[in-house]
């Protein structure tokens, strides 16, 4: 009697267990056959032609005008043809893509487009498409974050700042005054506000990619959905399961389709680094671009699957110069940071200790970073203490704020202990991203003495880095203003001689981090990009702008 109940209950449990296991075990082989959408749940197809990549987040938008994050850019850059592509480091010179040639004459830039680029709906990509798309991105209605990339074009900033209220005429007038025109199907004429020698390189940015007027006008906000979306790149978007995966298929109508070796690219959205690592180890993905737990880095670095690429990006601490007023204290604090220890023991992904704001990978860095040896990779406590003793009324209580992404806290704790050696009492404050940004302003909240920040280049010219610290700039959270610094940048913008520009950048850099500089910021390290790739994957490179060109990638058997 009791035994029967027991047997009945146990039987139920056992039945469930068998069903569960059966679904798992028996389903294994049929899963491969059923994977029509190529989700690659079990062993990834390593037959040549299919690549499966783990990416770290859902792309918020595949509209080139709205793509601000790296995941969106990754997809958008590979399903579209950018105006130009960037050549290899160190020069990162612009290379023909949609524009096969160009003329630069002071403030005037003329692009000559290829005539054989087609949209996936069969129509040709024209210069009118380019002009229409750029005006759309600059338009106040779209609210594009990256509209500022276009501010170098005459009239763009004014049009973007227009209030689209009842009297639309004012905005339309401003729109007509923007320095863009398409005299014929393959020519784009651009009027700039000043000669900007980096403009051609800037055109490689995702925000300049043209969109299909037909698709946008027909589908409105939903134009990026698979089935609606129309693109012109080596791959086309065939499936997008939100928060799950994206599938790209080779577009045979691309002008260079014969060079593209991949047929299908599966992008699996795996946000958790530990899961992504498991998926890579189990063979579910060919490339892990999501990442992995930081503690695994030192062991992963030994493996041949680990790939590391230099980046044009910097991790730095900024000072609120209205609070930490004495330049000697700022210099002392910058000198006290042991960059080498942080890079070797905390971040461990081959980052480079940064003695200057401008990264060594920046074109012209050999000139720009000449004399950038005041700050060293290791701490110089003797010199730091010397500067500290010169400070008349030192700010002993320092509040350091940073956002709550992984890694920042460990670095903050390390630097806190380094600054304590100067006799400073450092309080750490961690905030979530939107609140953190709110605190920084600009101008920063008065409770902020020092903060953590980063910057990644929009285009490979040092003006993009140095202008972060322009007086009153939207990215300058330091309250710092220096007439000479701004003057140097202004002159560089107006100059058409590359060597003169690099000299001016060098002067500006010295004002930032040189011996007689102002030290509004303390550089810490220059970024690297790292990922894991199976040995069957070739040509998968991350360039210093964090771009990956899938048309160069192949997967061997």
């Amino acid at each position, binding site marked *: 009697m009791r035994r*029967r*109940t*027991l047997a009945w*209950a*146990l039987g139920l*449990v056992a039945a*469930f267990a068998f069903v*569960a296991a059966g*679904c*798992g075990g028996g*389903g*294994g*082989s049929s*899963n491969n056959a059923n994977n029509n959408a190529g989700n690659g*749940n079990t062993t990834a197809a390593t037959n040549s032609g299919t690549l499966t990549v783990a990416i770290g987040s*859902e792309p*918020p*938008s*595949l*509209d080139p005008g*709205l793509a601000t*994050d790296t995941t969106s850019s990754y997809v958008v850059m590979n399903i579209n043809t950018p105006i130009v592509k960037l050549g290899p480091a160190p020069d990162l010179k612009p290379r023909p893509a949609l524009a096969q040639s160009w003329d630069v004459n002071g403030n005037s830039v003329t692009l000559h487009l290829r005539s054989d680029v087609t949209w996936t709906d069969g129509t040709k990509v024209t210069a009118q498409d380019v002009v229409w798309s750029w005006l759309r991105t600059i338009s*106040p*209605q779209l*609210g594009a*974050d990256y*509209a*500022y990339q276009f*501010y170098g074009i005459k009239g763009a900033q004014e049009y*973007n*700042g227009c*209030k689209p209220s009842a009297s639309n005429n004012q905005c339309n007038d401003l729109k007509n005054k923007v320095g863009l025109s398409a005299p014929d199907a393959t020519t784009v004429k651009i009027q700039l506000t000043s000669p900007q020698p980096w403009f051609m390189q800037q055109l490689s940015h995702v925000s300049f990619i043209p969109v299909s007027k037909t698709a946008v006008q027909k589908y409105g*906000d*939903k134009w990026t959905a698979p089935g609606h979306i129309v693109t012109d790149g080596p791959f086309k978007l065939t499936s997008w399961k*939100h*928060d*799950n995966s994206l599938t790209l298929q080779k577009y045979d109508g691309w002008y260079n389709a014969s060079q593209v070796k991949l047929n299908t690219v599966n992008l*699996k*959205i*795996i*946000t*958790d680094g*530990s*899961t992504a690592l*498991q*998926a890579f*180890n*189990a063979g*579910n993905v060919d490339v892990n671009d999501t990442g992995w737990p930081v503690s695994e880095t030192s062991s992963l670095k030994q493996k041949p699957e680990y790939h590391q690429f230099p980046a044009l990006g910097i991790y730095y601490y900024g000072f609120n110069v209205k609070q930490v007023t004495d330049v000697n204290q700022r210099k002392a604090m910058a000198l006290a940071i042991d960059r080498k220890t942080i890079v070797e023991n905390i971040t461990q992904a081959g980052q480079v200790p940064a003695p200057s704001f401008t990264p060594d990978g920046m074109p012209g860095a050999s000139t720009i970073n000449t004399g950038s040896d005041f700050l060293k990779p290791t701490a110089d406590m003797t010199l730091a203490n010397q500067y500290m003793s010169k400070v008349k009324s030192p700010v002993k209580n320092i509040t350091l704020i940073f956002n709550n992404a992984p890694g920042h806290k460990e670095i903050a704790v390390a630097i806190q202990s380094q600054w304590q050696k100067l006799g400073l009492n450092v309080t750490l404050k961690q905030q*979530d*991203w*939107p*609140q953190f*940004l*709110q605190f920084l302003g*600009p101008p920063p909240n008065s409770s902020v003495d020092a903060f953590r920040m980063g*910057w990644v280049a929009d285009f490979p010219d040092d003006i993009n880095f140095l202008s972060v610290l322009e007086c009153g*700039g*939207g*990215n300058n959270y330091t309250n710092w203003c220096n007439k000479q610094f701004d003057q140097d940048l202004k002159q560089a913008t107006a100059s058409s001689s590359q060597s003169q520009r690099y000299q001016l950048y060098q002067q500006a850099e010295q004002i930032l981090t040189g011996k007689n500089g102002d030290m509004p910021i303390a550089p810490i390290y220059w970024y690297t990009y790292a990922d894991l790739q199976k040995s069957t994957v070739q040509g998968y490179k991350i360039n210093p702008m964090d771009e990956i060109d899938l048309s160069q990638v192949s997967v061997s058997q």
Partner: protein
Amino acid sequence: MLKFVVRRVLWTIPIILLVILMVFGMMKEIKGSPFRRTERAVPAAVMANLNRKFGLDRPWYVQYERYVRDVFTLDLGPSLVLRNQDVNGIVEEHFPVSAELGGLAMLFAIVVGVPLGVISALRANRFTDYAAMLVANVGFSVPAFLTSTLFIYFFAGKWGGFTGLPTNGWDTWSAKVLPVIALGLGPLTYFARLVRGQMLETLQQDYVRTAKAKGLRWRRVVGVHVLRNSLIPAVTAAGPLLGFIVTGSFIIENIFAIPGIGRYYVTSVEGRDYSTVMGITVLLSILIIVANMVVDILYGVLDPRTREART
């Protein structure tokens, strides 16, 4: 019965209004803008345009009224962060996934937890009981993110060849096994302990002894008389447990890369996506209210005494 249901449904409206007000207030309190996602500053003109486009420049009562109207007309508006998607679409696409995950986890918890509790009670203070309760307690104490990661590491990673289980996803039957077990483990233990406790108490009751004395088969005594009374606390717990499953699902969804609504919920709060947060909060509130209502009805079905008391 009908009066009961109608009254409950009518109560839902003021509760929802209160929930919207509270969430609205909290979201405004934590500050931050949905339009700054990277370290790049957004030009003031663009920020102004965006705020205008999404109505964030209106006074707070106008915004509140807008949200209330959106909820009651079931058109929750566009997402502020995922610019080409709207909240209705997000909910339609991802809520069924979470519902399935939660439902299966609940089913797993009941199907394994209740018999476990029954066995433990019947073999009280013997080896079976201790073993079962040990398993149950471990399942309850170990946090979900740890169980999930360990499951993936062992069952999908190291022994993946034998089990054929994938490391992540929700597309195939085999992908659903580990997340369901990981999520259901907590409620399972809860059910097991509740059933065990109640059953032990019921087994001491006079009417059980009477039934045995009358000569009824033991299986009938347990199955008909004891079990029904023992399930009452488990049923009562099921309502709030649903809330636990819903919030626990975020962790599970994140680790197993499951495209459910829980993940969206937390990322929307972090991203200050007001419309999505509002939409999902209301959805979840209605869910919990309905679940509790169902539980109350079931309670009446299981225990005739409460039925009498209500009418």
